């Protein structure tokens, strides 16, 4: 309990810092710390699957994305300083936000007893999926349509990002070209970490069927390693018009959707799996989904095309 109180105070402390820091870069550093502390909180709340996701996405990849943006926008900081709202507006905002917090806190204190739960249903039906991890079972079986739509949402976000490219570079390379310095430290780090990271990513994905982990966490690590290789200049980002890239991006949702449709024939409903093949089908979906998510996340971080394609 003392540990939890201390952790909660720390989380609130870095949150206040993230809001109050003068310098945007300092605020981003606070946000990375926030994600990491939340990952610890998720372990304490007996949600290791969420802890893995938070450590990978909430802190890691989002942190990398925000840092890139904050260093690019550095010069605009002073210009924005004059546009801060006056004391009256700040006070009104503080009162409003205090009320929102108080309302939510009251709800937390008044949550029904005993708490409603779907855990017994999940436990009763997990055998039908052949999986050992209830969270993966929920993601891939009972709420599979959510997960299918989520992969589509990621693609839509990527289409949104790409659509911001100026016409002359449409279909070109995302982000600046980084050049590898053969003796550089960054090159060395990338050469060292990328293979290890790919291994860890596959491990996290693979254990997801029986233990905490799964396609989102594994895919995020793979994405981070691809971005690291791009930053170090070991590989260039592919032009977004490449056919193999487009195929890679839609492979996951397409296979997911196809097996979902096959569910009508095999088990009488969309995304229903026949019991004897459930695990095989789920893994068949998960492998392309992992690769597609990894590619989508990496390209979301890489941003819209900035350099015209070679012709």
């Amino acid at each position, binding site marked *: 309990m003392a540990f*939890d109180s201390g952790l*909660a105070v720390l*989380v*609130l402390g870095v*949150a206040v810092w*993230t*809001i109050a820091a003068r310098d*945007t870069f300092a605020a*981003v550093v606070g*946000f990375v710390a*926030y*994600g990491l502390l939340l990952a610890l*909180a998720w372990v304490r*709340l*007996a*949600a290791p*699957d*969420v802890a893995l*996701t938070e450590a990978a*996405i*909430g802190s890691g990849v*989002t942190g990398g*994305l*925000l840092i890139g*943006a*904050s260093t690019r*926008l550095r010069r*605009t900081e002073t210009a*924005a300083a004059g*546009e*801060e*709202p006056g004391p009256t507006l700040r006070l009104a*905002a503080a009162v*409003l*936000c205090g009320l*929102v*917090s*108080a309302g939510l806190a009251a*709800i*937390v*204190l008044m*949550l029904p007893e005993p*708490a409603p*739960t779907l*855990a*017994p249903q999940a*436990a009763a039906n997990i055998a039908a999926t052949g999986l050992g991890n209830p*969270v993966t079972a*929920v*993601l891939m079986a009972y709420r599979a349509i*959510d997960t299918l739509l*989520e992969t589509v949402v990621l693609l839509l976000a990527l289409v*949104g*990002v790409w659509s*911001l490219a100026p016409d002359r570079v449409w279909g070109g390379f995302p982000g600046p070209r980084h050049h590898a310095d053969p003796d550089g430290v960054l090159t060395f780090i990338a050469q060292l970490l990328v293979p290890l990271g790919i291994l860890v990513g596959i491990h996290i994905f693979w254990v997801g069927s029986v233990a905490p982990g799964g396609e989102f966490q594994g895919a995020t690590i793979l994405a981070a390693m691809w971005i690291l290789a791009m930053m170090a200049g070991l590989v260039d980002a592919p032009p977004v018009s490449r056919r193999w890239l487009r195929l890679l991006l839609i492979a996951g949702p397409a296979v997911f959707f196809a097996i979902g449709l096959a569910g009508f024939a095999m088990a009488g409903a969309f995304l229903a799996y026949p019991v004897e093949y459930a695990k095989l089908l789920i893994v068949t979906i998960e492998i392309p989904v992992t690769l597609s998510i990894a590619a989508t*996340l990496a390209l*979301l*971080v890489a*941003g*819209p095309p900035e350099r015209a394609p070679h012709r």
Partner: protein
Amino acid sequence: MSEATLYGLCGAVLVGLGLFGLIVHPQPLRKILAFNLIGGGVFLLFGVVARRGAAAGFGGDPVPHALIITGIVVAFAATALAIALLLRLFQETGRATLGSDG
């Protein structure tokens, strides 16, 4: 007070803090940061509901856990899109604020 309640109260305060940042910061990047803070708070509130639903040998209700994981990934996608929009705005106008420019 149980530890779940403690984290729930923490989540409630985080939502308020993030909302405050979202309102008072003029820079869009700070607003994006604040929005992600709110997200963390909301997920924590969800996690408390999950933790209280511990049953059948699970440490928490797996259904909210799955929803939180979905939420974290979608929040990332939204953040990436917002940042791309912001950088494009900066590229076009040389400014990175949304203020009244007339």
